[in-house]
């Protein structure tokens, strides 16, 4: 497939935003149970939500560049019964709305006790919004990944590993960002967040390596024989019906030599996993090493852009069987 940068930026930016929000609410949950010192609500939750909203907004802007007719984007909620893309278009604004309200509740220090859990734990609006946001963040990960995973003949994508990767890689970049952000807003949480970022990054390494392993061993189900229905072991295309290009020759080919593909793969395997791990772990040690944690996020995000590029480029569309020779 031809990797579209609009979609690459959409999925990586909102993935990081979802991870960041999950990190914020993880901290709030730990703090509610007195497992962590409560951070400054305004600085950590309020500004953290603002950061997540900025990433979500940037992702949303990027997504519009993918559309031929962006002015009709509102129509794309219609077929939510069948289309994962429509579901994503519904869940994304819902998540943005909940993150906004969550941030607002913390920003304004609006913490009326709505109910009390057994054990005397007070529940305020931010806790309820946090739970809703967490559910929506996971729903959004699933919707985004299922857009790809549900297309059964794109076999590199048609796997539960696609969904797991979207969740873990988005989560890893979000927690890395949260760790770097905590250096400024809540230094006491840095090692907690960096530790979780490292754990999720490691899990992401396992699942992404598993999907690379799987995809390297895929046997194509469609062949030229099934594509044109002629049972002969040797079929060669002599003409694809035109000499210039067409949508079919542009949309489904990445157009790069194998060496580039391999280079991108090794780049992201380094930049998404071991390098950020190194930065995160050394940032945890020498408390207040904001530069290292910022580097962890920046390198990981750059790696994820490459990872998403590779995710598209590696996928071989069966229609390519029909477009192998110009004339």
């Amino acid at each position, binding site marked *: 497939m031809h990797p579209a940068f609009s979609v690459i930026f959409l999925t990586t930016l909102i993935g990081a935003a979802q991870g960041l929000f999950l990190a914020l609410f993880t901290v709030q949950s730990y703090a509610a149970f007195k497992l962590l010192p409560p951070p400054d609500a305004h600085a950590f939750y309020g500004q953290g939500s603002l950061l997540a909203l900025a990433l979500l907004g940037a992702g949303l802007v990027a997504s519009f560049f993918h559309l031929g007719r962006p002015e009709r984007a509102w*129509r794309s909620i219609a077929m939510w019964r069948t289309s994962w893309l*429509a579901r994503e278009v519904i869940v994304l604004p819902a998540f943005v709305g909940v993150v906004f309200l969550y941030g607002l509740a913390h920003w304004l220090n609006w913490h009326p006790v709505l109910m009390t859990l057994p054990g005397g734990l007070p529940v305020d609006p931010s806790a309820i919004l946090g739970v809703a946001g967490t559910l929506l963040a996971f729903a959004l990960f699933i919707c985004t990944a299922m857009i790809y995973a549900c297309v059964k003949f794109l076999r590199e994508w048609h796997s539960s590993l696609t969904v797991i990767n979207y969740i873990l890689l988005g989560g890893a970049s979000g927690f890395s960002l949260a760790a770097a952000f905590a250096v400024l807003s809540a230094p006491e949480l840095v090692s907690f967040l960096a530790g979780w970022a490292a754990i999720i990054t490691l899990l992401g390494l396992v699942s992404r390596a598993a999907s690379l392993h799987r995809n390297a061993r895929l046997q194509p189900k469609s062949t030229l024989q099934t594509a044109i229905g002629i049972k002969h072991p040797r079929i*060669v295309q002599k003409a694809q019906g035109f000499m210039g290009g067409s949508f079919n020759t542009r949309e489904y080919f990445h157009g790069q030599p194998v060496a580039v593909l391999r280079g991108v793969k090794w780049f992201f395997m380094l930049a998404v996993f071991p390098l950020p791990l190194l930065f995160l772990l050394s940032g945890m040690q020498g408390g207040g090493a904001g530069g290292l944690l910022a580097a962890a996020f920046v390198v990981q995000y750059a790696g994820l852009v490459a990872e998403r590029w590779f995710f598209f480029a590696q996928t071989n569309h069966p229609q390519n069987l029909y477009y192998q020779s110009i004339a």
Partner: protein
Amino acid sequence: MMQLALVIDLNVCVGCHACVTSCKEWNTSGSAGPMSDQNPYGADPTGTFFNRVQTYEVGEFPNTETVHFPKSCLHCEDPPCVPVCPTGASYKRKEDGIVLVNYDKCIGCKYCSWACPYGAREFDEQQRVMKKCTLCVDRIYDTSMAENDRKPACVKACPTSARLFGDIHDPESAVSQAIRESGGYPLMPEWGTQPSNHYLPRRKTRIKIHLDELERADNPLKVDHQLPRPAASEPTLDDVVTW
């Protein structure tokens, strides 16, 4: 329920591309148009087409065959491009099974084209929406045309009648009979899309002639073996008797 479709006879197609040009001509000026071209006379021309004719070589020299392969939307009975569309612009008509795109609803996200294993959809760079074969839905029901003309433009254009058009759910239709009796097959059956368009395979016309068929089987002299068997070149009873 009706399912209109094309049946394409690969044994007859000569790869003249008349269906390609006829399709483009009709549809660029019809209700599915325009089918825009970019840089048509330049070094790198490109454009929107609903139908292409490709050419494959099967076998190894000297035992090769050239197969011309017309390729357009197959109007699948279970089209994977339809459920993925977020707006409902891509749809399959209940009444005749034609898969269509509503250009006024399409947002040009190209997801349907990813979800078609055949690459049957093409994005129009000028109108910024997805386009595809309509089975000339603006022709086949047009009562102002002579009944013989109410067929897709590609079918009308084919000089060798390699393209048949009809309802594959009607067992008596010409297309159903062709599929049934001439070995019609769908493309990429492994994905369960159940394409409505079928292809008829290449055929070799061979007859097996047995030695006794070269001689008259009803010649009583040969059957009985009572007399020496006459040479095949000698006159038979039929040659000398007026019945």
